[in-house]
């Protein structure tokens, strides 16, 4: 097990707890997706792993190391990267500068440059915009850039918060293809998604989170077939198909 979240209770600042005793795990070379309705606390799970919430109980272990109380830069150094939801690049910086800043905690210039070429190789569409401000990128390209910034850290674990949000269906497919490709390079991925069908299709396992508590768990296929999941989160279309 590469990442384990045990009995986690967390909230923001002095506000009420949003997560109550939740448990998740991520194995090596897996894509795991957390789905659930709005306000279930999905993003809070990722932020808690990354030290951006107030964890009141429970712990997060990365490999054999307890990272619950590490500051964010310590968590990055331990090999975890986070792609936030929505606003996840530096709009006033060029694409290349964004990538450089993705590797902010790395000190070797040469390493950063090599990594940058790797990322451009991985996302060829970004290369032609390298000296353009990222504010000028389209939504899909911006999401690719955000992924690229996280890859600058060569993370063992990648946390993705709603990678498909605000994107056209065609672009969503491209993003998910890239996510699968990232997995094939040896990075394990824990993702939170509204777009449950697409996300579960490429996931090894999935969790359903409801009102800050674990509700269901299973492989991606199991959850896709589960009638309760179908009704609640996958929308009408799926329900009709089930009824046939």
């Amino acid at each position: 097990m590469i990442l384990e979240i045990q009995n986690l209770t967390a909230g923001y600042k002095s506000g009420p707890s949003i997560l109550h005793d939740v448990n998740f795990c991520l194995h090596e070379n897996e894509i795991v997706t957390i789905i659930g309705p709005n306000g279930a606390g999905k993003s809070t799970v990722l932020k808690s792993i990354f030290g951006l919430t107030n964890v009141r109980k429970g712990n997060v272990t990365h490999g054999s190391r307890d990272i619950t109380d590490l500051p964010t830069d310590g968590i990055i150094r331990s090999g975890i990267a986070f792609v936030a939801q929505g606003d996840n690049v530096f709009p006033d910086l060029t694409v290349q500068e964004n990538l450089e800043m993705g590797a902010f905690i790395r000190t070797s210039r040469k390493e950063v440059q090599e990594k940058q070429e790797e990322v451009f190789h991985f996302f060829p569409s970004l290369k032609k915009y390298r000296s353009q401000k990222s504010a000028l990128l389209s939504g899909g390209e911006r999401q690719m850039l955000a992924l690229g910034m996280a890859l600058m850290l060569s993370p063992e674990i990648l946390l993705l918060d709603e990678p498909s949000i605000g994107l056209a269906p065609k672009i969503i497919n491209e993003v998910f293809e890239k996510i699968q490709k990232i997995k094939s390079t040896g990075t394990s991925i824990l993702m939170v998604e509204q777009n449950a069908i697409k996300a579960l299709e490429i996931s090894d396992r999935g969790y359903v989170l409801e009102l800050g508590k674990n509700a269901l768990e299973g492989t991606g296929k199991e959850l896709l077939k589960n009638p309760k999941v179908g009704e609640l989160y996958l929308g009408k279309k799926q329900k009709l198909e089930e009824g046939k």
Partner: protein
Amino acid sequence: MSELVAQLIWNGLVTGALIALVALGLTLIYGVAGFIQFAHGEMVALGAYAFMIFHKLLHWEILPAALAAVTVGVVVGLIIEKLFFRPVREHDPMIPLVLSIGLSIGLQALILIFFGPNILTISDRSFHSLSIFGKKILATPSQIWAIFLSFVLMGGLILFLKKTKIGKYLRAVASNRSVAEVFGMSTDHAMQWIFGIGVGLAVIAGIFLGFEQNLEPLMGVHMSVKAFSAVVLGAVGSVRGAILGAFLIGLAESLLVGLSIIPSGFSAAIPFVILIGMLLVRPEGLFGRRFENLRR
């Protein structure tokens, strides 16, 4: 171009260069911290008074006295950030803004307590006659230095922000603070950098201003108003905009009053008139993005 106009342009450039140094700090602090630091003008006064103490009272040479004043200024800037602005940083931007107004009034009062309301001067003026484009103009050595040094500092700052890792880091924090945090960039350090640089520049402007005019407790406020107008004129948060805005205001003030287009009693209104005009015509500033694009 008559010699009067040449002289007025020269004076305007000098004022513009000093406004630019102050405006740069103001725009950088706004960019990273997200509020207008109204006590920034008092940092100019701090520079002038600190230099006056080292140079006139302690009889240090100009260069060591200036370096000492800049050091004092940077230290004060770092302390102000840590003591006053850090604790309220996560609050509504209105709170640090009001705090900065209070700080400004408090610092003016401190100057009054220690130096009294009287006007003080730093230098006896010696004029040099310069010949630029065939026009004879009068320039003091400190004016020549002010122009030279402010251009070096502006160029240096732009290069620093564009080319160095720390510069890119500061721009990244200014561009999107929450993403910066996710990549391990400390907002605290960015604030310290920006206050250190900003106050350092304001102090340098203050030293030159001390040579240009008299030292009085409200000198910072006057400078603050001009720098603030320059920043809004250029687009709040923009470095190039602040520089351009500063020179526009410096030149406009010098030419409009010097050519008797506007009576000198109204000179203090000039930055405001330019500001209001700009807000009517192009509210996002010279280098601003249109408001629609601001919502990312």
